């Protein structure tokens, strides 16, 4: 295996993957677990992914593994409020809180689509491939997510106004 190639790729990709995973899960520790597992799976397949798009593969692993985790979590336990995450995830804890509360208003599926489309800047087709759903599903979930944020997360609209 080309260890150096894998290490170089991971060094360039893992921060973005972790930020995306955090936005999808709302839990930094869970996000690190997801990224770690994704990197292991990429490493197992590095010989075949190196010439392609290992980052897309890692994103797919993160998004799909999170589905499994979410289902398991709902069966086994309740979600703790990882409030302590906020101070370590953003230089602007207030913005982090607003974003977190807004994302918490979304369904897990809407949240995944929103993060992949608006944080990772994936196209609708790329988002559909990453999540294993149709482009139509991505369109409808993205529209529903944005509508829910518009009506249910005014503080996020204020925050977005600040960034203009």
């Amino acid at each position: 295996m080309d260890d150096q190639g894998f290490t170089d790729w991971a060094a360039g990709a893992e921060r973005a993957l972790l930020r995306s995973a955090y936005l999808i899960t709302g839990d930094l520790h869970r996000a690190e677990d997801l990224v770690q597992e994704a990197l292991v799976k990429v490493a197992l397949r590095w010989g075949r992914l190196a010439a392609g798009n290992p980052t897309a593969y890692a994103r797919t692993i993160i998004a799909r593994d999170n589905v499994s985790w979410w289902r398991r979590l709902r069966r086994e336990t309740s979600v703790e409020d990882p409030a302590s995450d906020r101070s370590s995830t953003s230089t602007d804890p207030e913005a982090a809180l607003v974003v977190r509360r807004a994302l918490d208003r979304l369904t897990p599926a809407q949240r995944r689509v929103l993060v992949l489309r608006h944080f990772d800047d994936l196209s609708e087709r790329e988002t559909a491939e990453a999540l294993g759903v149709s482009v139509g599903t991505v369109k409808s979930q993205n529209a529903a997510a944005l509508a829910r944020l518009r009506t249910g997360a005014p503080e996020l609209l204020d925050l977005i106004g600040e960034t203009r």
Partner: protein
Amino acid sequence: MNTLHDALERATDAIEAPRLAPAALLSARRRRARRRGAAAGVVAAVAVGAIVTATVVNAGSGTPGPAVPSLPTSSQESTTEIEPDPEPATAPPIDPAVVQDLWDPATVADLPWAEGTSFPRSLDPRDVAATQSDDTPVLAAVDDGEAISLWHASGARTEIDYPEPAFNEHSAPALSPDGSVVAFAGRSALWTSTDGGEWARRAYPDGFQVAPDWGVELDLDADGGLLVGQFVRDWRSWYLPSGGDGATSRLEGAPYDLAAAPDGALLGFLGGPPRQVVEFRGGEQTSAVYSDELQSLNRPAATDDVLAAVRGVGNWTPPREGAEENGLIAVERDTLATRAYLPIRDPHDSYTDGGTMAALAWLDDETVLASVILGGTPGTQYLFTWNVATGQLSRVSELPAALLLAVASAPGE
């Protein structure tokens, strides 16, 4: 970039790169080692006992957690730098005409039984009482954690006791191509036994170390030479000539997944880039062929002319068709021209990347003996034949996946 993107950016701008790559690499290797062990038939320590556990391995370091054991080693060693052929040949693309019908390995138990092989339908030592001796060639060795069973062409089973506890539960025994020599990775030394006789001891190479959860990779060539591989932070391989004569050679480049051919050659793979199929004799590289066109090859079996291997493709997004699918491949040894390709249904790459499929031997000029594990370590390892000329598949034998298996690639030759 849009404004929602800005908000999401701001909410995560203090998240730093977690530097997970080294741990991911180690985890991947451990996982692959476990799977590869399972593919060869990992002995379940809980089930069979008498295995050197990680605790024992760690004891050498005196510290808890991951450890690298030091071993008694030989003092005579030379380093052989691999000097690639100045103009290696390049494997040609797979001719669509040689691509056969897609096969689903999950249906292996439904295949018709093969005619005319000497393998018993069960290689589980519990199914046949051991006999004292048998003069027919050894086809396979099965390590159940208590002893090594030798399965003979007559159908009889003989047993050899361990010379000492095994190095660990991931280290499979090896058989020479003709089946006459068995090699065993012990706790303190390497051991060989010829024709079921007394064990002969060989020191591990100087500097030999093995990472936790990683087994000793062991192969025997047709001359009785031992090829020993290790992984700690990278792969390293040594060649120990037969009988302890001559210097131990360390092979830079460390080819992996080695297969012994009846003509004395050992063939393995270099990960590249560029990928290569390399051949060496007596510890020295004798040829190489660039193999990027064939993508990822592993778990090979070789004759004097042909190589069979498991092939994984880089396009992981379905749908895949024909040669875009993972599969079993048969290529000419000198050119890597594809003689036949059997695509398999492997949507999760578990057979190819997970190490649960392997080419084991060539039974004749057209018949590859291969294996696949279904159901993980608690499951079953199935041996089957693939006729490369006709594409016909037949079931040969089976054994619990928790047992370690080695197969003679040219029994009796």
